């Protein structure tokens, strides 16, 4: 079965410090991986995606993610955290077992709450 795991329910970081939000995945074949952010009472906002190519993917708001095939991980990172980065972060993988390889639904992790303190 295809799945995504976010092992940390919460990550606490001081403003200005680097942050990492962890994600591991289990898929059949090549993964299509995504990170989304959710602010309170808001929908999910797309941050970045890995499809193929460079293992380091750059996205919105200064975030980046590192794809590691051997460790089946796709950790979200930012060199210097801001208080405004505090939110709920979701890792997701495209379900590629459906529809003959065209667009399947996303399978989400449980989410990681990021708290950045001044």
């Amino acid at each position: 079965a295809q799945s995504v795991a976010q092992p940390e329910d919460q990550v606490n970081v001081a403003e200005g410090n680097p942050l990492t939000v962890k994600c591991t995945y289990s898929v059949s074949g090549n993964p299509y991986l995504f990170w989304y952010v959710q602010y309170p009472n808001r929908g999910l906002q797309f941050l970045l995606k890995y499809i193929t190519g460079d293992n380091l993917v750059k996205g919105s708001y200064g975030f980046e993610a590192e794809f590691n095939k051997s460790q089946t991980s796709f950790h979200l990172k930012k060199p210097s955290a801001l208080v405004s980065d505090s939110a709920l972060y979701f890792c997701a993988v495209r379900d590629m077992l459906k529809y003959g390889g065209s667009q399947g639904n996303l399978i989400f992790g449980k989410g990681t709450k990021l708290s950045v303190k001044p």
Partner: protein
Amino acid sequence: GAGVSQSPRYKVAKRGQDVALRCDPISGHVSLFWYQQALGQGPEFLTYFQNEAQLDKSGLPSDRFFAERPEGSVSTLKIQRTQQEDSAVYLCASSPALMPNTEAFFGQGTRLTVV
């Protein structure tokens, strides 16, 4: 509109009542997904439309849930005889293409509370 629009934003229903949740996707987007997000959980897939065709409804939790997209644009998720376990945020997402590398754009969701 500029993004995916969902209405109502909040809905309180008495147990046993029927509800209808609306999703206005981004104009021209082919794919439309519905997800259910329980408190403290990640979104879980409910159903998928490609234009007006409902290609996948494997995530619908019971036959009380029904979705439609008759003209390939606006979609409605209907829940009959609501139960307390239906309380959740219902998210709609759309995307412009049928390629797996295309990100989905989410609406703000409808928070359903069944009392």
